[in-house]
């Protein structure tokens, strides 16, 4: 067996050993707080993945709760990106304006956004709007501040070259400034992605009539521990998949950047 294969195997062996140990421990301890992993997986299957083939095996419960939650995360991140990236590029290229705004931006970034939830409830009432507002307000700052950083550190030689070749202003923005700011913007986006999941769950716990957070709060109110654990594992899986998706997008968009650096 090659070294690489051996490493790959050791990774899964350790994971499987942990799950088996967890199963043995829970069946021995019989604690009502710690259901066995087999029971959790079974419940997850019953709840969400035992639907008809026409609905990709998703149950009505899954389409009614998992999809709205994911929709809120995507909508929130899309709005935060649509605000953060253009604004970040504009501010990154105008250091004078940034100096005036810097304390406000730093304060907004330091603000623990969860305290704003009751204000958003008053402004938008309970429901999807308030949840998306919470996600946008919490995730826009890492994207904005990182894009400012990225746009401010464009290689001046490249800019001068573009100017010397009489490249129009908007072409300079698209071909020189945006590509230079992208790696930093992605780093901010990665932080925003994990924040968006936290805020999605939080907003749904606080006030929602559907979504994973809503199911979670139902499970907790009825002391259904297996159900509660099923929602936690589901969130872990969704987080993992979203991270992989972002990793793929990053390789696709920034492939040139990493190959540049490898030289």
């Amino acid at each position, binding site marked *: 067996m090659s070294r690489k294969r051996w490493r790959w195997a050791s*990774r899964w062996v350790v994971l499987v050993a942990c799950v088996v140990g967890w199963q043995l421990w829970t069946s021995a301890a019989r604690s009502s707080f710690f259901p066995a992993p087999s029971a959790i997986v079974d419940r997850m299957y019953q709840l969400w993945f035992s639907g008809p083939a026409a609905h990709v095996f998703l149950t009505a419960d899954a389409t009614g709760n998992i999809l709205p939650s994911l929709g809120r995360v995507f909508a929130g991140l899309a709005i935060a990106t649509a605000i953060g990236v253009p604004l970040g590029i504009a501010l990154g290229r105008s250091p004078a304006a940034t100096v005036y705004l810097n304390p406000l931006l730093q304060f907004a970034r330091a*603000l*623990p956004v969860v305290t704003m939830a009751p*204000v958003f409830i008053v402004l938008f009432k309970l429901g999807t709007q308030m949840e998306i507002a919470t996600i946008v307000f919490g995730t826009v700052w890492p994207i904005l501040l990182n894009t400012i950083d990225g746009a401010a550190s464009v290689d*001046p030689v490249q800019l001068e070259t573009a100017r010397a070749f009489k490249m129009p202003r908007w072409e300079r923005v698209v071909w020189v400034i945006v590509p230079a700011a992208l790696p930093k913007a992605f780093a901010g986006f990665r932080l925003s992605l994990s924040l968006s999941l936290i805020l999605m769950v939080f907003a749904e716990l606080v006030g929602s009539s559907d979504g994973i957070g809503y199911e979670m709060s139902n499970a907790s109110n009825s002391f259904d521990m297996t159900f509660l654990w099923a929602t*936690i594992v589901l969130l*872990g899986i969704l987080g993992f998949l979203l991270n992989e998706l972002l990793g793929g997008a990053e390789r696709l968009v920034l492939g040139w950047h990493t190959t540049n650096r490898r030289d």
Partner: protein
Amino acid sequence: MTSTTSAAPAAVGPAAGQRRPGRAGRWARGAVGVAGFLLLAEAAGRLGLISRAALPLTSSVLWRAVLLAGNGRFLADLGATLEAWAVGMAITVAVGVPLGVLLGSLPGVRVATRAIVEFLRPIPSVALILLVSLLLGPGLRMAATLIVYGAIWPVLYNTIAGIDDVDPVAQETHRAFGFSRFDAIWAVSLPSAAPFIGTGIRLASSVALILDIATGYITGPINGPGIGAYIAQQSTGASNTTVILAATLWAGVLGLVLDLLLTGVQRRLLRWHHARLGEP
């Protein structure tokens, strides 16, 4: 090394044409920005551009924030939030940094545990609030547990990244002189990884504060401690947006002060590092 090369052109580049304001100038302009924002918000409220029913006037929020600073209950809640943050961060650093050094220096262990870490890390820590509150009940233990779970990842990942970044020549040199592996970690790897670890701790601190307050907010109505619980209790009655915004203001100030504190400590401890890069 990359930072020296990328910092040099920035200094002669776009800044060369414009006059860069000094430290005092930056502070003054920042203050102008803040004052301008507050005045605009106040004017928008007074002119009716923003409905007063939805958002209170800036001046009344500021005045309420001043009053809150003399409110014993609010101060006790602020203290509880700070205490949970401090306990949670202390455990996070005490566990995260050694674990990161271990995983960073032993690639075999890191590969073997990667699958577990990759499955544990994406679980949003707020998802555990309800489970942990049923297990431990509201209070310091619960808040600290959740903070450690959420905040340990940036510390762990940045420590590993920092150890990866260590110059292998420096490490080999140290070992060639007969020092033990442990000595090499202590004298070469840790100092070289310190800036990365510092960044990880600052990221962790903001996550910790969010969790700290979210935990209080969700378990708040059952009389939990902390700013989150204070806000939750204030918002259950008639919608009292002024108090909530005033408390939010203090929460933001707390976040800012903690970040500045950590930056200050990092600068002080890593003075040699900044000096080497030729930064102030």
